[in-house]
């Protein structure tokens, strides 16, 4: 056999530059998330055609249009359901889901819950700005109690959900929190999340500089503390993670809260995928002998 000389050119961030540049407001937190994602993919040497970036609708959900991978810009709240279909149809693909807190925890809350429980092997990056950006500044499921927004001009009387606590309770197997003001740390988390076989969730503080004047860059900068700086923290300990997840106020932990690797991902647990490779590459149709059996059963 003739020797094949493979020149493996390392990928760079430039390889992931999308067809158009982001149209986010200058200073929007989402720029940091996009940059971190490109860096993570380049570092892991995942070629653009091997990844699919999938989003719902929102400012943050515009991300798939700004990155050079296969992409799907789907419906508001539905990205995780679509992504599950993509992953199961071709489990060789790296699937990344991005979107806002309204998209993921509001309208898409049901899919969030069930995608975690199923341990679908994908990375879900929630770009959490505690507000509805694209619809010009209404209250979101992560807006704090008392927050004044266009839909709550006198202050919200509803408490927020805590996505990390929710993910821990729902059985997610990789749970982290990042901050778009900490791009290197975020890139590292994304790389771990992509490598994790199973559902990886990263809730990212991605400030909306236009509509959320409470949770700003400086607000987060003062408060975030990296879990990685505490050498005694053990991310395999679910109880410890639950405790840390409830910390909020002057100190807010970011980093990897929890990871477990003892539960098979859905594509590993599904016997139909045991042999034969990805569904998308399989022969269409039913073998004649099997078809005969199916009809015979009914005679």
């Amino acid at each position, binding site marked *: 056999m003739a020797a094949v000389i493979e020149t493996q050119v390392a990928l760079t961030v430039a390889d992931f530059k999308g067809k158009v540049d982001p149209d986010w407001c200058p200073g929007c937190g989402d720029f940091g998330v996009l940059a971190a994602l490109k860096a993570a993919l380049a570092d892991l040497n995942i070629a653009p055609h091997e990844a699919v*970036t999938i989003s719902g609708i929102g400012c943050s959900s515009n991300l798939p249009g700004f990155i050079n*991978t*296969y992409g799907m810009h789907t419906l508001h709240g539905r990205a995780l359901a679509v992504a599950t*279909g993509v992953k199961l149809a*071709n489990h060789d693909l790296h699937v990344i889901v991005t979107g806002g807190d309204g998209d993921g925890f509001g309208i898409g809350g049901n899919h969030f819950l069930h995608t975690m429980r199923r341990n679908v092997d994908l990375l879900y990056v929630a770009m959490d700005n505690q507000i509805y950006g694209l619809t010009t500044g209404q209250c979101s499921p992560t807006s704090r109690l008392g927050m004044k927004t266009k839909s709550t001009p006198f202050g919200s009387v509803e408490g927020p959900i805590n996505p990390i606590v929710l993910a821990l309770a729902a059985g997610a197997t990789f749970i982290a929190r990042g901050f778009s003001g900490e791009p290197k740390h975020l890139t590292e988390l994304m790389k771990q999340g992509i490598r994790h076989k199973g559902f990886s969730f990263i809730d990212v503080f991605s400030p909306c500089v236009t509509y959320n004047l409470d949770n700003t860059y400086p607000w987060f900068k003062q408060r975030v503390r990296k879990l990685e700086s505490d050498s005694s923290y053990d991310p395999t300990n679910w109880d410890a993670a639950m405790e840390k997840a409830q910390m909020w106020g002057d100190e807010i932990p970011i980093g990897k809260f929890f990871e477990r690797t003892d539960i098979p991902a859905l594509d590993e647990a599904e016997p*139909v995928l045991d042999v034969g490779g990805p*569904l998308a590459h399989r022969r269409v149709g039913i073998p004649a002998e099997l078809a005969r059996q199916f*009809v015979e059963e009914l005679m």
Partner: protein
Amino acid sequence: MKYTFAVGIGGAAGQGVATPGNIFAKIFARRGLHLFAYNAYQSIIRGGHTFLTIRTGPEEVTNHGDRIDLLIPLNQDCMDRHLDLLGPGAAVIYNSDSIQPNNPPDGVRLCPLSARQLSASSRNKVEQNTLAVAASLSMMGVGFQTLEEILSQQFKKKGDAVVEENISGARSAYQYATEHFEPFPTALPRTENGYAVVTGNMALAMGGAAAGVKFYCAYPMSPSTGVLHWMAAHARKAGIMVRQVEDEIGVINMAIGAAHTGVRTMCATSGGGFALMTEGLGMSAMIETPVVVINVQRAGPSTGVPTKTEQGDLWQMLGAGLGDYPRIIAAPLDIPDCFKLTTEMHNLADRFQCPGIILSDLLLSEGHASVDPKDLDFNVPIDRGELITSPNGNGEPYKRYLITESGISPRAIPGLPGYVHTVATDEHMEDGVLISDEFTDPVKRRAMMEKRQRKVAGIEAAVPPPWLTGPADADVTLIGWGSTKGVIEEAAEILTAEGITTNQLQIRWLVPLNGDTITGILKESRRTIIVENNYSGQFARYLRSETSFVPDGHIRKYDGEPFMPHHIVEAVKDQLAGRTTLSVPAHEIRV
């Protein structure tokens, strides 16, 4: 009129109406007879009143008919509800230990069996259902051996003792009937044919499997759940991924994700679940990813009557989703057509990269029919349309939404080198980049809208027009769509035999409609009557909106039960006599 024989078995849910039903179905099919079975039931697991009609004959049986020849009431309630509706020549077999008949109508024979006495003589306690089946077979002139085989099979798992017990119990009932009850005048015929007994839901599922579906997902909803059950039971052998999703919104979105990645995908639901899918359906059209959705209609609105049939979702299908987009909608005409249409729909959806909707209903989906195995041939033509499955060799930039004459743009699946692109539910340019936000552009928007809509012409050309059946020059033309084909056909035969020549135009493809062909046919008709299973005449209104055609009369039914032939026959006569132009037949059987 051709020979048919109908058995009615009724009782409370949980009393085991299904088992004797299945035994009769097997016996009929194995004798080479056709059959059609309809089970009138309620959304209750135990109790209520369930009534199964199973009708057989040597020629095709397309509906459950007008007449019960043999009634097997399993409780007093069933006896009370049905005895009065029997006609001369009919017989009733019942357990006289617990059920007492009122005065039967003239010519109806009462055939009491005492389960207690029969069990005593055979020293076994056997279910009254089995005894009744055995006695019936004796009266129908069917040898006992057939039942013996079926009982051995049925009770095999429970061990030899149970098999023996049931067979000897059944034999004593068979002998008792031979000695005490006069047989029916015509013994059950036999032919050389062999049929499978299939529900519409099984046929839809098998059609999907034959078409190469590799991903099926659903959320349970009557009366569509049978598709999920067949898929789940056969998934591993057939290599089909089956998922039960959290809701129907998740279903359609997951299905589209899988379809977009290159596998043939299908999902089934009923009207309420379909309502949740409508936004997803628009996504399928906008990102141009084909998906096949089955809606098994039940009586609406809202939760409606979950176990009853209706053709009430047509306008929901026509109007599902915002904006204009190409879609294909068709209603199978009978149970074998559930299989055939599903295979065709997958090819069309793939070719035109848009949603394909199959509009079944409870009558077909949960009804049982004998199907010639030839009509379940899995070796069907597969046309995946312009699907790109190998890498881009020439390095040319790829435009997912390339503007073409046909409106169809070659579709590359994720994972292929050289075709990286992003699809979007926002309006986009040929390369997929949005034109909805910063760069809205009326010229490009119009071009994309027209590109997608150009597919409609292609779909129209690909879909065969409907045709008229029966005498060309008839007094009456009956127009129906989907599942009413069989019952209208029989009503037309009865009318024609009675001197009112009647022909039939049955619509299978709803979108596109082939309106010109339809009006061309109906122009020649002397009197046109549209028959449909809904309140407002949904098809009549649709036909009028598409073609301006207004029929002479309507026959509608929206009580949850399917038409019986005499409902249509009597309504046509009423309309010919000038008594009405809108008939709403009453359903005499209270189930």
